[in-house]
């Protein structure tokens, strides 16, 4: 697996969720790192699955999310950092 940067992951996520974010009045470019996509109603669990699938297709990744804290799975910044770290190979 090649390294994908946190920034690349983050901008892909925001691009994928551009429509629901704007529909709820959020400017994707101005989201704080801790913005919670689930609490804010941007995505539900099915949305998370779709996002993960799209992300893995785009960057040819296969990510194990078991070690990601539940609090962080749906937060933009921590999620992007976790995925990026996973692409760097085993810790």
């Amino acid at each position, binding site marked *: 697996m090649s390294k994908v940067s946190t920034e690349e992951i983050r901008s892909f996520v925001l691009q994928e969720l551009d429509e629901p974010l704007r*529909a709820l009045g959020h400017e994707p470019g101005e989201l704080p790192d801790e913005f919670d996509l*689930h609490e804010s109603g941007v995505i539900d669990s*099915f949305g998370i*699955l779709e996002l993960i699938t799209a992300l893995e297709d785009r960057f040819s990744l296969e990510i194990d999310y078991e070690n990601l804290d539940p609090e962080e799975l*749906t937060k933009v910044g921590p999620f992007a950092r976790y995925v990026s770290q996973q692409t760097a190979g085993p810790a």
Partner: protein
Amino acid sequence: MGATPTGGPAPTEAQIARPLHAGFERSAASFPGRPALEVGGRTLSYAELRDYAASLAATLIREAPGGEPALTAVFAYRSATAFAGLLGALMRGHGYVPLNHNFPLERTRLMLEHAGCNALIVDTASLLQLEELLDGVDRPMVLILPEESEAAALVARFPGHTVVTAPELEPAASLDPVEVDPGDTAYLLFTSGSTGTPKAVMVSHRNANHYVDVLVQRYSVTEHDRFSQTAEMTFDNSVLDMFVPWQCGACVCCPSRKTLIKPGRYIRESELTVWFSVPSTAIFMRRLGALKPASYPSLRWSLFAGEALPAEVAEEWLVAAPNCTVENLYGPTEVTVDCLIYRWDPARSPDECEHGVVPIGYPVPGMTALVADEALHEVEPGTEGELLVSGPQVSLGYLRDPERTAAAFVVPPGHDAIHYRTGDLVRRPADPDAPVPYLGRLDHQIQIFGERIELGEVEAAIREESGVDAVVALGWPVTTAGAGGIEAFVADPDADAGDLKRRLRERLPGQMAPRGVHVLPELPLNDNGKFDRKALMKMLEEAT
């Protein structure tokens, strides 16, 4: 059709003729110090939860003596008040009507108004919506706010209504037991209706007790069990989550909405022994890498209901939870949670699955299944037909809706008992000992995350919001378990898709709100002159 081979005897009429909360009361007497409920980071013992509920019940009696309807609404979400509230409603001799602040307000108001409740138990998280909710309610309500203590400000906020805060609650000891007719409504739940308005299903104490007794016996539940509580109270899977463990002194482990996003950690940290969810949750866990071998050794039962269970999910779940037995439970709200059950057997089951879907199995003890044609005559063995169910779990019907009740609760020719028409397509097994396979729906109902949704209801909402008659709603993407969401089509090229989507989101709860709205100059028609759903489905396929 044959009864389930693993069922045991059916509960007797004498056993089920009791109030739904009688099992909880008995456990509170036998195990006062044992945990009854874990919620919001705290544990309530049976004695504590019983006292909280009894205090709410005594307060309800003081503030709203008698009067119809005998229903109390509980506007609370994953809090001690939510659980004590519904037990309190039952102890007061009322049926409970659960409301959810995550639903669009208009929907909650419709539920409250249709139920006609004049008492409402509210927790702090739901209080934020209360003013707006009561905006369209013109009768005086009794508002019990047990988590609040500043009465003066709240009285001013809700003029015309009676406000009761914590200091004014009656002590638990002041509750005199209320006599309950087991044939009365124990809870009222709303299901999606094809004509645009939801249906309010009245389930009696007797109905619910039959279900609870069947499961308690089937799963040999004891006071040492720890049950998951994944279903919202507005969804009848929650009846299993609460009343099966409470009957035996076991603990209901209620996660926060946030915790539910990582169910694997919840199972481990709560040391659950019984898991119950919609199959979608298991599918979600598999995708997140949470079904690794031997991840959940504490589970002794894993139960799935609400939508089709994919065989591969059952197989993988068993690898992740090697000490458990997996069962697939089937049933509409109208027949009290579940009425057919299938036990997964790794040796035999793969051969019994069709199209990769686990069978729905055999009627539970006391219930009977009939596979019938359109004239309600039983079909020949090996033939497909609609599944009809009869027995003590057939509910009381729809509140103030004799027409839709008569259409769904029928007496087939040659029978005496009322049967509920499920609208589900099954096959009468050629071999009488074989399990019933689930083949899909006969109408436009779909299942998303276990929720049964009438596409007709979604279409009615789209028509009203768009002012356009030619609309179609489709379940999309199609999954083995049901559908992932809803896509809407509107024949009006000038419609503002984004705005329409937003308005539908404000109006329809959770999974019912379309995830995408497509505006077209016109909708394709098939040879019968009906909207061509297959062509629209193809359009979605091509777009992805």
